[in-house]
């Protein structure tokens, strides 16, 4: 299986090097040799609470952010996300209807031009953080670029993990750093300006 290289990472210092990022903690163990994911604590808290409130139904949405490189380290920063509040959801599946994608298109274009759709997030109530067979086919179909990740949160275990592409295959689920930023709006603007629409 091969992914298609359509986006190039833009140069931006790793959050570990930028003192505006603080209280960088980890959600689970961080796997190396893969696309690193840095997620805003606000986004992660939203996913956690949204998943818990809607148990046992699955919830989901799309992560927006930027695909960056610092020296040889490729990573994505996710400062914001759009939740899917429409469509059908069961304890074992979630459907992202066309209306949701229409809304994503609008919000993305109007509010976050320059950011990329980094990938989907959804909850797995009681099923762990590894993608299911259905998830894999969804990810393969719609998020198959090297900068794409897929995040899963299990509200039962209160644990999150993400998969990404590595050498054309989906890497095993891994933990990731969660950050706070002293100027979150400035960060979003900087990330948007890195890739003019």
């Amino acid at each position, binding site marked *: 299986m091969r992914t298609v290289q359509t986006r190039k990472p833009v140069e931006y210092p790793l959050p570990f090097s930028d003192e505006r990022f603080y209280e960088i903690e980890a959600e689970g163990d961080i796997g190396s040799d893969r696309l690193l994911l840095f997620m805003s604590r606000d986004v992660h808290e939203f996913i956690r609470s949204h998943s818990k409130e809607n148990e046992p139904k699955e919830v989901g949405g799309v992560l927006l952010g930027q695909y960056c490189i610092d020296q040889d380290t490729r990573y994505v920063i996710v400062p914001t996300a759009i939740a899917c509040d429409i469509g059908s959801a069961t304890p074992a599946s979630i459907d992202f209807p066309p209306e949701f994608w229409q809304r994503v298109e609008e919000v993305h274009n109007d509010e976050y031009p320059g950011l990329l759709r980094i990938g989907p997030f959804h909850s797995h109530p009681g099923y762990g953080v590894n993608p299911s067979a259905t998830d894999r086919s969804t990810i393969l179909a719609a998020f198959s670029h090297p900068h794409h990740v897929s995040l899963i949160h299990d509200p039962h275990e209160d644990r999150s993990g993400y998969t990404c592409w590595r050498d054309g295959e989906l890497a095993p689920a891994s933990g990731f*750093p969660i950050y706070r930023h002293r100027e979150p709006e400035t960060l979003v603007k900087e990330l948007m300006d890195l890739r003019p629409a």
Partner: protein
Amino acid sequence: MPKRILVRDDRTDRTFEWRPSGNETAADLLILIAEAEGSPLDGLMGKLELVDGLNGQPIAPGTTADTLRGDRVTARTGFVCDAEAQLAILREQYGGRFDFHRLGESASFLLDFGFGGLIECNGTNERLVVVSGHHQALMYLPSDFPRQRPTVTWLTAIFHPNLQAQCQVWPPGLVWPEPEREQAPSVTALVGALTETLVGMRADTGRLSGLLGRPANSVGNKRASSWFRKYREEIATFGESQLFCAPSLGGEFPLDLPDADWRLTGHVTGGEPLIFLSAAAAKAVRSRTFGSGWLVGTRNSRQGTDWIYVDRVLPADFRRGRPASAVGALHGTEDGQAIEMGDARSLYVGLSPDGTAVSLRYGERDLSGHFVGPLGPSDTEGSLLPKIRVETEQPLIAEGEQSEPGTMSAAKTGSGELVAIESTEGECPYCSGPLTGHEEWHNCPGCGVPAHGGCRERLSGCPNAACQQSPINSGQH
């Protein structure tokens, strides 16, 4: 008449009489002692041990009362188990170059060292001083250990002013502290000092005898003493390179290493130095095995942000100054030694006062988080010590193949084939292994001393200390 055994509990200063009714074991006695104390048994396991009240030898938990030799048993804090745990931690830190085996349930430990130490061997026309990579010693913990220091008998050939084969030895300069003092005695410090002695970093050549009131017999090998005086600096440099060689991380950012998981403990702030502790180093820090130690690893920087990878923790002798590959120091939790390295880019690691958390300081800055990562490369290599291996799956000689007449004979058994090598070209001075056609070896182009190619590679040169290609002379460590 039922056996009656006098049990002395050294920790509580109480004496009991044990009257076993049947086939009770030493483990049952431990349960009774725990009950008498009102202590939960699981809290005592591993911390309490039984030793023969007369000779101090440990008693295995499975020993039955009727097979006990004497009628006196002493219960004491599990020093032998504790020593064994310390050695296990040290084995991880030495990255496959140190191993140990407890001899049965006794208080004796066979110590295997894979570091390069000097020995003498016969050359063509003269005695040669060569580097050997296999050394052994026997350490015995006496019945009143740790009040009394262990005894160490060096077993293998050695060329050193203070070490002699088949003799009791003690690392020069090492003081065995009183247990009541702040600095607790430990086998870690002893084995660390022994290792330093083996590689030549510690040596008392007797030059100052008399001036310091040392006994004249502290120098056991006068020829070695003279040799060490002559090449003092070269040996010290070589020894340091043996012990403190930098880990082979290659300067690569740890989060870019292939297939490694890192656990971030606490939190970090952008721009702060990033600290990566190998799993083995983190274990050593938490174990309290080391009063103080050197943090050996690599440091680098990216976008102005320093990062440090600590591969292992090694026993420290702070009188000698900081080794080049030490990126910081482990602050002793018990001996109160404060180490200042005089470098703003040095890392200091310790344990919080309650012993539950790792605390870090970089220069003057307290850090609130660090990564703990995969086993370092040295931990995954396995032991570098020579091993005896009998192939049972693949015969050394393929079926139908003729062995060279007169050189080998093979005995077939139901579980493979064992081939005796009856003719060799001599012995490799580094590993003491035979020089045969099964492993690449050659004579040194500089001095003609033969050695395995792998041994030369491991040593970064020729084992012959007099050869210009020896790491002792060439500086290629």
